[in-house]
């Protein structure tokens, strides 16, 4: 008897599945809910960046690059296609200039999207 009872334990899940909405999300046409702390696209705040290069040093995927002429004059580049979205740069930055948003990063057909200029100190001074 116990054995037969055990074989019907999945019935609850079947009933639940019948009355529930489909789990599939029609992405990108419907909004996809991602948790607050999801490590998605990188957001950058140029005002906070001091050009210390700590993020570049610790990035495991070499997805960040800094061209440094002097303390004030530098460009910080990000290559989203190389990025592993690991969160190390956010961790390493002592000024809170770099962080993850919970937005997904889609594929791109534009070459320009492969390199993001996070900060060009010259351009920001002009």
């Amino acid at each position, binding site marked *: 008897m116990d054995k037969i009872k055990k074989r019907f334990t*999945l019935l609850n899940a079947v009933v639940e599945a019948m009355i529930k909405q489909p789990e599939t999300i029609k992405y990108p046409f419907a909004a996809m809910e991602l948790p607050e702390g999801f490590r998605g696209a990188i957001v950058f705040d140029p005002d906070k960046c001091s050009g210390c290069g700590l993020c570049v040093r610790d990035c495991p995927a070499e997805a960040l690059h800094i061209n440094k002429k002097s303390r004030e004059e530098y460009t910080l580049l990000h290559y989203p296609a190389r990025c592993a979205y690991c969160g190390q740069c956010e961790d390493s930055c002592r000024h809170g200039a770099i962080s993850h948003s919970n937005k997904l990063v889609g594929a791109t057909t534009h070459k320009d999207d492969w390199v993001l200029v996070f900060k060009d100190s010259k351009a920001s001074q002009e």
Partner: protein
Amino acid sequence: MDKISIPIGPQHPLLKEPLSMMVDISGEKVLGGSLRLGYVHRGIERLAQQRTYVQNIHLIERICGICSHVHTTTYCYAVEALLGIEIPPRAQYIRALMCELERIHSHLLWLGILAKHIGLDTIFMHTWHDREMVLDIMEEVSGGRISHAANQIGGVRFDLDEEKGEMIRKILIKLHSQVEGLLDVIESEPAAIARTKGVAPISPDLIKAYGVVGPIARASGVDVDMRRDASLPPYDQLEVKVITHSDGDAWARTFVRVEETRVSLNLCETIIREMPRGDVVVHAPRRVPEGEVIIRSEAPRGELFYYLRSDGSDKPARLKVRTPTLAALSLLPVQLSEINVADIPVVLAGVDLCIACADR
């Protein structure tokens, strides 16, 4: 009847990862087999020598897509041992919580694959549906479904607040009841028992001769579990029930993993209940003093072994990883004899292959 050799893999519907096998058959009987490995070798150990200790956390995480967290945990414990720092108790508990969640989802994934191979597609759907709940917890707390990036040298990256703890507890209670039902079905389903009982038994002597570890060893009555034996923190404070079975066949391997899922669910609840308060990270220097260390931990598939040598710089001089699957694979040709052709999927599924781990 004549002997025929059939190549299976490296790409084959039976296998989720690339592995090449040559199986000798005569009629319905399998006479033996041989293996070829290395299709997903990425040279991670060598790569690790060229990167800093911090960068290596994310490299090591990519050794495996299922047990990624236990790899980084073991690596971080190794670096911390060389640095001579002890991480806060709360961080130890969070690491262990993630390890146990990982074990649950790994075992559920494996159970689904086994069920699929023996024709129980309903079980496959249910296990993978339930596994999703575990992945949801991990995504919610760490920010990534598979690559959790939860560890850093000196602790963990995130803390669990009251709200998150409550959320995990709620999901775990639901998961527990669902998984209990599922496991009951597997344990009483005549088809599952008929397909696995008495298939490819392994003797404890063979297990010891080949150095096989984890659930496969425990299913043959070899009582090893690094959570208890190596007592890495916080497992030295937690009581881990080690499940063993004496039959050593495919059914015993199923039983052990099913029971381990239950143990891990209970362990998760204990960890959340007993989690100490405090910091989750301590400062760790970038340069690691000269020395070498060995750390062993229990991955979902068995003992994970890390050897780390430092020459005093910020990059490791040598990192050696021994994953449980490699030993289990060495036993596969032995298992592939004296069975029926139809049992090959059951034997393969019973090993719980992780080729990415074995090849690195």
